[in-house]
């Protein structure tokens, strides 16, 4: 008989070594997340998947599942914490949802809707971040980067290229590209790289394909993220 824990009153089976997120994904129960992608080692940086276990908050993507745990992922308190974290992400960068090519197929936007975030709330920082359009096939808009490091991990662990890294610290933390000029076009990055297809926001976008699917008919325009899951699973449909 397999072991189980309780997630919002539901029994979730798990194998030893699985995290709460692993088990929830396997059971098709949605826990919101941004920096997590089951193809890569858990990271735990965005904190959107925070859940409550006996009054302690942990990230579901890094916390091990164990027998008899009682996990709360849907109370108003947990949703409020997630909402605040998302509001922080939105004011840290420059996110222009109505005009963004990724609108409707953006995980950041979809998770924000899921948690009931209706406004950015905090004071915007309005950082100045240039766009890098030097690559023939791909554009990087640093304004939309949320520092999830999925491209860093994909390039390093899957593509074997180490094209990306995070530099600076605190609010100055930012994505950097490994080339003599620091530009994507001068790096070994290719549109076929895994790293080109893991961004949960509109920070890494293919060139020449904008608005192929009209806004309003896109993945999360049709159904919420809690039903359809991560955008990466639907990439063929949405880009």
């Amino acid at each position, binding site marked *: 008989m397999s072991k189980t824990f309780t997630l919002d009153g539901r029994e979730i089976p798990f194998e030893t070594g699985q995290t709460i997120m692993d088990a929830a994904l396997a059971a098709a129960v949605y826990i919101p997340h941004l920096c997590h992608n089951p193809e890569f080692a*858990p*990271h*735990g*940086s*965005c*904190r*959107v998947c*925070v859940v409550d276990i006996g009054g302690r*908050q942990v*990230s579901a993507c*890094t916390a*091990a599942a164990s027998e008899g745990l009682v996990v709360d992922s849907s109370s108003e308190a947990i949703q409020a*914490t997630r909402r*605040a*974290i998302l509001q*922080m*992400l939105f*004011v*840290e960068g420059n996110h222009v949802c109505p005009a963004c090519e990724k609108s409707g197929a953006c995980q950041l936007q979809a998770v924000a809707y899921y948690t009931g975030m209706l406004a950015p709330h*905090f*004071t915007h*920082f309005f950082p100045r971040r240039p766009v890098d359009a030097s690559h023939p096939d791909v554009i990087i808009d640093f304004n939309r980067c*949320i*520092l999830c490091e999925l491209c860093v991990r994909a390039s390093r662990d899957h593509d074997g290229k*180490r094209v*990306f*890294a*995070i*530099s*600076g*610290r*605190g*609010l*100055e*933390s930012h994505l*950097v*590209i*490994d080339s*003599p000029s620091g530009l994507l076009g001068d790096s070994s990055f290719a549109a076929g790289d895994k790293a080109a297809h893991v961004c949960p926001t509109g920070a890494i976008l293919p060139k020449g394909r904008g608005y192929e699917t009209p806004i309003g008919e896109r993945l999360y325009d049709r159904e919420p993220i809690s039903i359809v899951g991560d955008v990466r699973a639907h990439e063929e449909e949405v880009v």
Partner: protein
Amino acid sequence: MNASTAVTVEGFVTESLATHGRDPRHLLQHLIRVQQRFSYVPDAAVEALSAALDVTRTQVRAAIAFYAFLHNRPRGAFEIRFSDNITDRMLGSRRLIRLLVERLGLTGLPAWGHDLIRDDGRVSIGLASCTGMCDQGPALLVNGYAVTHLDAQRVDRIADLVQEGILLERWPGEFFRVGNNIRRRGLLLGNPATDSAALHRLVDEGADVALAEVERSGLRGRGGAGFTTALKWRFCREAPGTERYVVCNADEGEPGTFKDRVLLTDYADLVIEGMTVCAGVIGARRGFLYLRGEYRYLLPHLESVLQRRRAEGLLGMSILGADGFDFDIEIHLGAGAYICGEESALIESLEGKRGVTRKRPPFPVTSGFDDQPTVVNNVETFLAAARVVRWGGYWFRGEGTDQSAGSKILSVSGDCARPGIYEYPFGTPVHRVLSDCGAENTQAVQISGAAGATLSPADFDRIIAFEDLPTAGSFMVFDDSRDLLDMVRNFAAFFAHESCGFCTPCRVGGALLRNLIEKVAAGQGSEYDLSEMRRIGAVMRQASYCGLGHTAPNHVLNTLDKFPQIYRRRLARASHTPSFDLDAALSEARALTGRDDVGAHIRVQMPDGSEVSA
């Protein structure tokens, strides 16, 4: 002196690689040497190190951007960094910074992360978080070396020395004198001498006996978290691994803490003996002493103690003649990053990377340096462990409280007649420390540093112990002449600057909190902003990835509860005030339209309630 071009960058890097090796984990150590030699890390060094160590240039640049003491642009030949802890400010550092800026013909004031650099490259002036000289401040670092007891006269003289280009070696020796100021000695500080008795006992009676004594003593880690030392050693000893490591955490970055500096100065032998005993217990052959960059002046002293102990057979191969007991210690320098005091970030930094906290579990005891079982303990913990193995667990257990055996060494600073080092048995009430150090009219005590708790007089009967007031050792006193909001602003800026940036609540929340406090301090805050501060603080506490984010809002939440008047007396009357000037925001539009009549202005509410057009 730094800007000499006699040696090329490439030549210097080649020599550094030849002397100190090509292990990618030594990247940070190479960068620190380049920085010290050239006052920055030139691109040529980035390329050379990247090629030689098989790390990407991006990783090298990311490390430079992460550590506060590394730069990608030249600093001055004299690189001056004023210590900017609240205790330095209370001792008048801001006035002295202004004086030096003026005397050197610079303009403006340095801010955190923003240095003033003179056009001729002779000198730069910046800030450092806390240089660990709070009992003898205001202090500064010049090319990494601490100058204490600053006053107008000393600053004047420094300006002259800089103007005349006098080499640092020829500056007056008393500038660099660092006092110990040990005011009260107890269990640990009572006798600095060592006859290596703990090591002899380990070799004579075996590792099990030594570990049993540490177990019996009830010793808990002195870094703040208070994990049981014997348990940590036992876990590490029993964890599977091919190598094991001992790491001494001498990062002491907590504002207001300086006792480890004194221990490394006068008790280095005992600290190293404690590390060696730990190595014997867990079976480690290599150890590291991670020394904060601010204490670089201690490097020659510590190296000479290590060298002497090697010569005496207390380090190296077959220690005390015991076959197979091989252990040696390397010193690694930090480069200005508070987060590196957290044990997993410290290990990342030891491995030459940015000091970002690791995911736990696994904990360092099973997967630390090089993913091998590693014990990371504080300086004071190793000192205590050496004494415990020498004198026995009961000797140590005889002092303190039920859950907190032994004594605690405090770094006392701020408004008191006798700042310095005080050792007390655990269980000592706060008021006892205050009376001993000569504190009068005390308004508040900040215990355990910026990350600790703010105590009001109602707390002064509470005791220093893990069961009541745990502390890493910092004890900052504020008398009733102080505006505690100055402390809050200082700490909030500190945490925003020192967040590693990895997780959202700490990275963004810390900056939001700092900005809101500045808004209140500027007289533009409202009740709404105070409740926002509580809300952001709560999210940081609950949802941050590591202890830095969990504790960063403590000072704000504590003072909002215990000292609400420091905020309230500054609030604008309205329940909400915007964070920007609405009328000023329209000025560009007014200029463009050429219209500047009354109707083109937002009506502004004055503090007395009346409305006027701006």
